[in-house]
């Protein structure tokens, strides 16, 4: 903090200036409130529609009369939501485990060990992050189909067990911030690099690991392209995103139920956000403005 540079600190500004500042603040807050209403509107309308009868959902009414709470139960009767949720969780949990198991060592090697070609390899990792998945999808699909695994979730899970570029990047950024003294202390105690990684680094990097796990959960939960490609044909292995996109086609279900299902799919993410807000904030800061 460069203090002493500024001449005189808070001198009470003249009245006109204060008034102008006050008006600006009011204007700014009004804009914020308007924007907040606009941001909340979609979810509000979705919720209201989810509580309507189908006749109403097809009409211009905005307010449900009567409120049909049973719509949410109907969604479960109409579609195997539980099955989809189970598959999604399977995908999420296995992928997240894989991300952690594979990416932590790689990130460590890319941040705390020095070896020839390290920076080049790190650039390669970044490059794979930039590459649209559609570029490699044809040969990969052929490969998985030869292995007879198309129709299962394995083509989505196995690759992340072999390193996930985004998580490697994120963890590396965090590992770089760990003070060298901690590692040196461990080395003096006679720890090998592997021990240092599994004890000191992992303990210190808990917030980053939590953020990576969180982002991995989010990514798998929201993923659509790869599940469409690999399990789209096999309803038994559908995840929530695929099920939801197919929801209307499946049983010719109505808009009110579709919106109820939409809301149900949004819910877990929002709950996770409020439960893990701190990890989120730290994670986003890490991806965003670590400098």
């Amino acid at each position, binding site marked *: 903090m460069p203090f002493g540079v*500024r001449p005189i600190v808070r001198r009470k500004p003249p009245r006109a200036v204060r008034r102008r500042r006050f008006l600006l*603040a009011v204007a*700014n807050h009004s*804009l*914020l409130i308007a*924007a*907040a209403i606009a*941001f909340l*509107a*979609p*979810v509000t*309308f979705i919720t209201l529609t989810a509580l309507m009868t189908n006749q109403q959902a097809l009409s*211009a009414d*905005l307010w449900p009369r009567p409120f049909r709470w049973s719509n949410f139960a109907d969604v479960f009767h109409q579609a195997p939501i539980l099955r989809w949720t189970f598959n999604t969780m399977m995908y999420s949990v296995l992928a997240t485990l894989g991300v952690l*198991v594979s990416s932590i*060592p*790689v990130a460590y*090697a*890319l941040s*705390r*060990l*020095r*070896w020839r070609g390290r920076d080049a390899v790190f650039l390669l990792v*970044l490059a*794979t*992050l*930039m*590459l*649209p998945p*559609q*570029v*490699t*999808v*044809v*040969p990969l*699909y*052929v490969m998985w*189909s030869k292995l007879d695994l198309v129709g299962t979730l394995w083509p989505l899970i196995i690759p992340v067990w072999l*390193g996930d570029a985004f998580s490697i990047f994120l963890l590396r950024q965090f590992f770089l911030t760990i003070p*060298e003294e901690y*590692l040196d202390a461990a080395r003096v105690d006679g720890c090998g*690099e*592997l021990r240092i990684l599994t004890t000191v680094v992992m303990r210190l990097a808990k917030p980053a690991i939590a953020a990576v796990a969180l982002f991995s959960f989010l990514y798998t939960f929201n993923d*659509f392209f790869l599940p*469409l*490609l690999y399990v789209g044909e096999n309803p038994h292995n559908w995840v929530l*995103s695929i099920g*939801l*996109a197919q929801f*209307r*086609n499946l049983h010719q279900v109505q*808009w009110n139920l579709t*919106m109820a299902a*939409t809301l149900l799919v*949004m819910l877990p993410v*929002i709950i996770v956000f409020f439960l893990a807000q701190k990890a989120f904030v730290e994670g986003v800061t890490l*991806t*965003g*403005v670590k*400098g």
Partner: protein
Amino acid sequence: MTVTRAAATSAQDVAALPAIVVDRRRTRRRAAWRRRRLVLLLMSPWIVGFTVFFGYPLVMSAYLSFTHYDLLNPPKWIGLANYRYMLQDDPQFWGAVRNTLWLVAFMVPAQVLFAFGVALMLSRARQGVGFFRTIFYLPALVPPVAATLGFVYILNPANGPVNTILGHLGISGPLWFQSPQWSKPSLTLLAAWAVGNVMIIFLAAILDVPRHLYESAQLDGAGPLQRLRWVTLPSISPVMLFAVIIGVIQALQYFTQAYVAWNIAGGQASQAGSVSTVELGYPEGSTLMYPILLYQNGFRYFHMGYASAMAMLLLGVAFVLTLIILRNSRRWVHYAGAAR
């Protein structure tokens, strides 16, 4: 002090103590070998993953792009025929290119400007910053399929709430997802709604601008707009540039929202249950993005050779963009995370 040197010296210390006479070089070589083995061990998942999921498919894609391949019969070499068909004959190719370029030219700037505007407002707020930040950030977490479904319903021109409210105000609302002029702007609205990540990054960058810069500008008699132009913008320009590049990369792979919106909006007005009867990129091909056309060719028509040719072109464009990023990676590396 670097890690390796520390590791090397400690290894040396341990090894050197009992064996004063033993060849020191050998010890050092062994230590180096052990270190290399450690790096290899730690890197091994990525090395395998990179080879199998990037190296191999890139080479294979290049090969397949010169073949006719339907996955049932072995690939047949046809030279440049796929590329010729793509650039000259395919009636859908240029439309898809134009649609994707539209995203780059309009959706990306709109998204960046909007995120910046919201962040700017938030940075000046005195009350309820946490509350507003949560509201603006949350939509970014909403699963894209769910968000798209919601928007298609809300923007339904016949009975959706938005047009109903516009109607009460005496405005005849547009056809939104049902009209080729409005379908991409509707997707842009959706993108603006889910702009939270970029917004947070902007917010942090704005708050990072040193206060004294503003104060000295104020002393020089700069008004709020001038301060924005001469202090805020220059200070956050790297972030802005970064946001644009990431936006472009995302625009190149834009798939889910367009695919779902067209199937749902198109399915509304046509036979349910069978995607194949919904016109590609409904309405009038206006939402047929490049990656979707690639998907259609590869995995609906199973023209895998042709899809590979399209992938090679996409690779070329992404490669150029990636080079731009990596060239400046020193400056940007900290922000690259938002690519996901």
